[in-house]
């Protein structure tokens, strides 16, 4: 019982990271994902790091089962039960457009077609007071239809259920009684206890749509692991960046929707903790760049940047979710000429045909081709040598475009990278502007196959002086899961203009949430001394809509005299930090109470990487700033001491480019730290 194991099951590969509690050794490996029977790939990957599952003391994984079902529109068949007169809320979808100049705009196609929506009589008012009783016959009619027509799930979203769940709860009872275990019944107030009926309906529908798939999958994984002797519960990463055990995830499957990718952000959180020390509250920008994708997320004050809502595939979800921003198209972005101008992206060559250098028929130059032409990618080492690159094809693609623009091909190749880097940097800057923070205050944590290749250039554009390339940049999401806490988020709608606030009532409500959170943590097997609950309240000035989440000292704080002044001042401070101004004299209002329970796992420091191998150094010609530099290419495992750029560091899953003027060192955690001079 001495291995802690994390696994990130992606579309193509399953990454696994294993931590040996006895020696502190960390190992990473990967195996192809096996879509037919995922367990096969999981055990293949596991077999590379641990001999006997019974030796595992902690197991966590990220799954994309729910997300894949959504992306491929292969989720459950859902019957939606809505309030009478509001059945079309889900179809109308708030009526907005995302694109301004489009005469042919279409909303995302609803996951439940209009004919599969039924209405239930009964109505509550804005305070949750009943003024039309629930029409139980209409609920039974829905149950009958679900049974007769073989629906997999029923989602229920009744107006004002967040204020008073009684009608929904009763409808749930009837449906469960009539339908039994075979049909998943989802109640909106259990998924998202927040106002706004369309967003809550959408959340409930998404849970109903993806839930059956996720539940089946988790049940299978647990069973297979138990058969192999795993003695501890399977944990799952949630979209919030926190962990839960599988039995909870089966009850709230929606929370696992972005399970995989948020591991990287949690890795960023852990990296910040290791770099700056526990409690130092560092800031980091996490960039995950692959062949065709570029995702950015933020760590602010040592915490992941988590939103209370998000849109996935155009569908809103009300749940805590790590903000992942997909920008441009990464290494696959195509460069082209338009009216004499050079453009890079957003069109991507994708995986097929892919960049010209993949040799799969692509002829248009991409960012990856530009990197190859500049010598920044060692064709022999691309993707750990698993893939051969056609450097000549890359050169030809770049040369053709250079002819169109009347530019020297190498200048163009560098220009393509410069434009791509500038665009990525600008998009990152806008994200930080939204938080009212300057990017200079951040470290740039780069992972994914291509992240470390561009990181130093992006950092320079942003005025960032420190790039961190973690160990196993290709398996960083899995590593992040290993370092995450158990997390349970609870909300309580609490709409109160300041003149109607009862401080003691607010405190009492926080107390109830705290009890609920502690109970939930103990159900997750977190011992008493490792539980903690944090409280915060969503606030705004009267008339505003966006809220800021303002932390409280503890559940008792609202009961203290002078609380209103204290919290208003704290809000004004947060408002100034975020927006640059505040109106201290304006009245505030409270919207939502939020309590989050955390359960931490014991962590011990990782041992340094194995003793350096031979410095298998080679030298290549690489272009930087328009000139050829004779550049050493080094194996990462063999690095020690200081390494001045230009240099290229290769490892199985990633390439790090250290431009001239930058200096890299390996820190005690095994991170490669690149100091970037402006």
């Amino acid at each position, binding site marked *: 019982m001495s291995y802690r194991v994390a696994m990130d099951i992606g579309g193509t590969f399953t990454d696994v990271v294993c931590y040996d509690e006895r020696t502190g050794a960390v190992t990473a490996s990967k195996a192809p994902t096996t879509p037919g029977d995922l367990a096969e790939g999981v055990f293949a990957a596991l077999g590379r790091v641990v001999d006997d599952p019974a030796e595992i003391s902690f197991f966590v994984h990220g799954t994309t089962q729910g997300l894949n079902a959504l992306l491929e529109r292969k989720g459950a068949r859902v019957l939606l039960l809505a309030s009478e*007169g*509001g*059945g*079309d*809320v889900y*179809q*109308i979808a*708030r*009526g*907005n*457009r*995302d694109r*301004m*100049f*489009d*005469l*042919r*705009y*279409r*909303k995302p196609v609803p996951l439940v077609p*209009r004919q599969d929506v039924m209405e239930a009589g009964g109505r509550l*008012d*804005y305070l949750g007071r009943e003024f039309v009783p629930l029409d139980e016959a209409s609920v039974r009619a829905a149950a009958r239809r679900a049974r007769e027509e073989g629906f997999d799930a029923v989602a229920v979203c009744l*107006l*004002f259920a967040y204020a008073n769940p009684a009608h929904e709860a009763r409808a749930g009872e009837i449906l469960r009684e009539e339908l039994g275990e075979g049909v998943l019944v989802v109640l909106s107030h259990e998924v998202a206890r927040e*106002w*706004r*009926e*369309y*967003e809550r309906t959408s959340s409930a529908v998404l849970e109903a749509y993806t839930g059956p798939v996720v539940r089946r999958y988790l049940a299978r994984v647990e069973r297979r692991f138990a058969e192999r002797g795993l003695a501890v519960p399977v944990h799952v990463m949630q979209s919030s960046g926190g962990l839960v055990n599988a039995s909870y995830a089966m009850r709230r499957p929606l929370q696992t929707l972005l399970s995989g990718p948020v591991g990287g952000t949690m890795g960023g959180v852990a990296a910040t903790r290791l770099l700056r020390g526990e409690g130092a509250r560092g800031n980091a920008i996490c960039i995950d760049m692959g062949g065709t994708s570029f995702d950015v997320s933020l760590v602010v004050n040592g915490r992941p940047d988590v939103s209370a809502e998000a849109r996935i595939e155009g569908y809103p979800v009300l749940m805590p979710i790590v903000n992942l921003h997909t920008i441009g198209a990464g290494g696959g972005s195509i460069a082209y000429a*338009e*009216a*004499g*101008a*050079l453009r*890079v992206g957003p069109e991507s060559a994708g995986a097929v045909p892919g960049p010209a250098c993949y040799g799969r028929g692509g002829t248009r130059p991409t960012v990856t081709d530009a990197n190859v032409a500049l010598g920044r990618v060692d064709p022999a080492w691309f993707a750990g040598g698993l893939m051969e690159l056609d450097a000549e094809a890359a050169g030809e693609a770049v040369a053709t475009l250079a002819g169109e*623009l009347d*530019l020297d091909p190498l200048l*163009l190749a*560098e*220009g393509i990278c*410069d*434009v791509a880097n*500038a665009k990525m940097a*600008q998009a990152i*800057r*806008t994200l930080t*502007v*939204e938080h009212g923070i300057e990017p200079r205050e951040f470290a740039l944590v780069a992972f994914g196959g291509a992240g470390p290749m561009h990181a130093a250039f992006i950092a320079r554009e942003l005025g960032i002086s420190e790039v961190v390339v973690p160990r196993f940049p290709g398996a960083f999401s899995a590593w992040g899961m290993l370092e995450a806490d158990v997390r349970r988020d609870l909300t309580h709608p609490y*709409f109160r203009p300041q003149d109607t606030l009862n401080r003691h009532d607010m405190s009492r409500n926080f107390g109830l949430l705290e009890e609920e959170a502690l109970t939930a943590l103990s159900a997750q097997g977190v011992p008493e001394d490792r539980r903690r609950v944090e409280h915060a309240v969503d606030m705004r*000035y009267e*008339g*505003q*809509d*966006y809220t800021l989440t303002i932390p409280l000292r503890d559940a008792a704080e609202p009961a203290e005299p002078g609380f209103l002044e204290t919290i208003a001042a704290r809000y004004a401070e947060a408002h100034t930090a975020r*927006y*640059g*101004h505040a*109106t201290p004299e*304006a009245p505030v209002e409270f919207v939502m109470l939020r309590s989050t329970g955390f359960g931490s796992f014991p962590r011990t420091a990782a041992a340094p990487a194995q003793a350096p191998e031979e410095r298998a150094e080679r030298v290549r010609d690489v272009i930087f700033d328009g000139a050829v530099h004779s550049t050493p290419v080094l194996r990462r495992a063999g690095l020690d001491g200081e390494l001045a750029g230009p240099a290229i560091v290769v490892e199985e899953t990633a390439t790090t480019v250290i431009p001239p003027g930058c200096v890299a060192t390996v820190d005690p955690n095994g991170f490669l730290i690149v100091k970037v001079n402006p």
Partner: protein
Amino acid sequence: MDPVTTEIIRCALLQAAEDMNTTLIRSSYTPVIYEAKDCAVALLDRDHNVLGQSSGLPIFLGNLEVCTRETERRYGREVWEEGDVWVLNDSYIGGTHLNDVTVYGPIFVDGELAGFAASRAHWLDVGSKDPGGSMDSTSIFQEGLRMGPVKVYAGGEPCRDLHEVIAGNVRFPHATLGDLRAQVSCAMTGQRRLKEIVARWGLETVLAARDEIFAQTERMERTAIAAIPDGIYQASGHLDNDGIDLDVPLPVNVTIAVAGESMHVDLTDCADQATGPVNCGAAQAVAAVRVGYKLLVSSDVPLNGGSFRPLTVETRPGSMLAAESPAACQYYYSHLGLLIDLVVRALAPVLPEKAAAASYGDSMIVQFTGTDPRTGKVYVSQEATVGGWGAWEGGDGEDCLINNVNGALRDMPIEVLETLFPVRVRRYEVRPGTGGAGQWRGGNGVVREYEFCGDTSLSLWFERSVTPAWGLAGGGAGAPPRVTLNPGRRGSRELLKVNALPVRAGDVLRCETGGGGGYGPAERRSAEATAADLARGMTTG
């Protein structure tokens, strides 16, 4: 100028505008800005050309520069001083209603004027005779505080006098001054970004890049226009009325002349400026034409100072589209929505691969105001209503979607509306069978039914009953809107436009918006599509 540097500078300017917009939207006080995105920003060069812009509302496209231009015309270039911020909302300059306030400031780099940062945002109230704006105003002097070009910050410090004037003339001073501050921070963000860009590359390089960027854009625009066959293209429609003389429809005629690489749009043949508030300044008519042009001709071409060089627009002073003082302008957008649709209609025969049939057309405003019996506080609720969009070759129009003029506006959730205001929403549903028939059908309108829980004062602005959404290529027209007070009860009445009508607690208001036009003959609609419509209950037959 090397294309790499040019492209990096171009992206940096666009991103600077995005940052300005982010700052404005995230820090504004009123939902009309952060929710309805009733705002726009632009970074301008010192000759008032657009370097980068970001718009929440299409209708604000490319006319923020009229404000800096007019200020300079009046007071000379030497009027610009570092740290100053200006404000302007004059309808005859900016083109829109007084609620749209433009805030702009010069940007100096090393003591030299380098450009301007500007934003326009809709203020909730500017002190018109009715809260939020009137539907029956007959002169600009009933519509609120009118500000020419005036300084609101001087040398980086707020001008107290003007702040007092604003605070004393609007109904919600906290929120209004909050929005003003948001616009000032937006201008500061623009200043900071442009300074960074100039500091990095030098003013000379930035100007050379600018010239190249504009030239590239102009080439793309000219290529797009050249692909349209030369000729004269026309379309006509009618606004229902001006909100005062309810029986007199107002004509809008568009004549577009395409010759080689340029396009001229003649708007002179339209109604004279009206008694009611359906007038706009010429700048806004130009902006509307640009929106129609952008939608149809060059939606993929970047927006900047090179964008509209081959496009000229002619208006007639004293007409509804180039109104003069003291014409009322509160509902400046109804005929502009129509104008945009008419530009599309005129060019549809030669650009069938981009066109679509008409949409339901206007914002369809429901406004009610009174004292909330639950709290004793005064409230104003104003909502735009979704409707059906037009079909095109290959696709049905979307159902229940916000109108073209209204950008990213989202409807008000029932749960939020009932919490904030003394009202209940009895139904909110698709209005089946209202999209125009066709091989591709028009989108359906919506039904939204309110029951008032306290006495209130009701104002309505529903349009397009005279010219409902037309079909294209043989497709049918969409249904017009219909609004009924107390449907099915004794004394029930139909209304489309009304100002401050007293209604009682318990009264029911049923609002039905129109559908979009169809495309192609209905008999060519596929059997599967017809069956799917029936299954989904989207048609009534």
